[in-house]
């Protein structure tokens, strides 16, 4: 059986097991939907209060917010298995993953794909669709071929960048199982920061999110291209097509970290 088929079989098992407790699951999906809906409610309240965000109107803000949130929720649902890394390494159960003829990364990812995060994805999608429709009806042609290409590439790259941060966090588990919450700063902080136009960022934050954890490069720049807005004063629109490529070196770095961690892994259990 090929590794990809094996992965999907694991995912299928995980989904089936979650469907056993339907009422608990329904509550969880509702909870996730509510959490993100309330976040967007916050954005809406601030828009009502202040009128615009550095020149961005509500549909444009919602477009960026929904776009980033969809990529994040998808990556978050896919990568839930990484959450088990700490326990696996501490107890030595990680050994078992190494004895099986499938990449440990795929085994971890296949361990659980959380359906409850679907609530979050649905909310991001709803915001995005609303924004897209209201922008289109007011004459913003975000759906031209170049814009669509940039958005598609940016969405994929966004998922890859978020997954890479999760993989880095898992890779660090080989060195320490304590205190890895600090990576959440980049995950949740990054999501929050990249959901707003980066033109308002301080210089060091621009550097961090364009180059370090390149969430702004892969998501903000494509959205700017689609909306026909300057990302930063004087920046050309075509950067929206180049930006998504920033995901490649970042993912490469995450992969190297993971490989290095795997090489020095010594079993902690019996």
């Amino acid at each position, binding site marked *: 059986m090929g590794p990809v088929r094996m992965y999907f079989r694991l995912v299928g098992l995980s989904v089936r097991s979650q469907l056993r407790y339907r*009422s608990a699951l329904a509550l969880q999906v509702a*909870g996730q939907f509510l*959490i993100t809906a*309330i976040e967007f409610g916050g954005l809406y309240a601030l828009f009502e*209060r*202040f009128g*615009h965000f*550095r020149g961005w109107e509500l549909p444009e803000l919602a477009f960026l917010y929904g776009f980033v949130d969809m990529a994040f929720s998808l990556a978050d649902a896919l990568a839930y298995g990484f959450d088990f890394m700490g326990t696996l390494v501490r107890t030595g159960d990680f050994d078992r993953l190494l004895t099986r003829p499938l990449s440990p990364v795929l085994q971890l990812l296949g361990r659980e794909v959380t359906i409850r995060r679907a609530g979050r994805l649905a909310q991001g999608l709803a915001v995005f669709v609303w924004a897209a429709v209201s922008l289109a009806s007011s004459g913003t042609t975000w759906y031209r071929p170049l814009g669509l290409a940039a958005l598609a590439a940016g969405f994929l790259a966004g998922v890859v960048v978020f997954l890479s941060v999760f993989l880095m966090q898992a890779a660090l588990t080989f060195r320490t199982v*304590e205190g890895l919450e600090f990576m959440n700063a980049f995950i949740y902080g990054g999501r929050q920061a990249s959901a707003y136009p980066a033109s308002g960022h301080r210089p060091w934050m621009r550097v961090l999110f364009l180059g370090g954890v390149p969430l702004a490069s892969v998501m903000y720049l494509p959205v700017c291209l689609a909306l026909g807005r300057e990302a930063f004063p004087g920046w050309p629109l075509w950067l929206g097509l180049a930006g998504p490529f920033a995901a490649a070196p970042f993912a490469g770095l995450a992969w190297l970290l993971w490989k290095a961690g795997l090489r020095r892994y010594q079993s902690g259990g019996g």
Partner: protein
Amino acid sequence: MRAYLATFRARFRTVMGYRAAALAGVFTQLFFGFILVHILESWYASGAGAPIGLAQTASYVWLGQAFLAFQVWGPDPELRDLIRSGEVARDLLRPADLFGLWFARTLGWKAAGVALRFWVVLAFAALFLPALGMPELALNAPASPAGFAAFLAMMALATLTSAGLAVVVSCFQFSQVSAAGASAIAGAASMFFSGLIVPLPLLSGPVERLSALLPFRGLADLPFRFWLGTLPPRAVFSQAAYQAGWVLALIVGGWLYTRSRLGRIAVAGG
């Protein structure tokens, strides 16, 4: 009473032992708090007409991060595992009230969670940010000594409210396999209605009126208003009375619910 005090102390000390993990979590909060304040600064730069200034809003956000552990994200993980594994049956054998023991335990967990973290956030926001050259985003001192005293009184009530809400969420495990769904919904409500997503003074209309009725406001917004001086110190008596009413309602309601459920539970495991 001594049994409850001992339970409280034991849980408090256990949680206080996890310094390294808490500090890693605090790093996330500092980063996240900074991004929140930074985004709010952009909103303030975009439009006028906010009822409180940026300096007050920044202080509000930092206080929110400092006392974040009061938010209702679910049951005490230790209690959750005890209930799931059935080991909680041992609590039924003790010559003390079950709900009382749970409340004492949860109170210890909540108080220690805040005690571990709040001073790091306060020090960073009040001292470090100005030193970094960003005094406009820093935490300002309380508006008056009387206001600070009112803040402390409301914070004592916040601790009780927080434990009350968390223990009520734990009770959902009587009827659900997991309290995850209820926790997610309670978490969303508490984050929003206590002012952690958007400072409540920036809201208006029915949402603000609703938030004034709910207990969540006492976890953050109410004490913070005394710190900022947007509520006069003498208002502490009426506000504290209202909040104490909620605490009483949570405790009595939870106790009655537990008693009605205890007749019907089946203990899993042996």
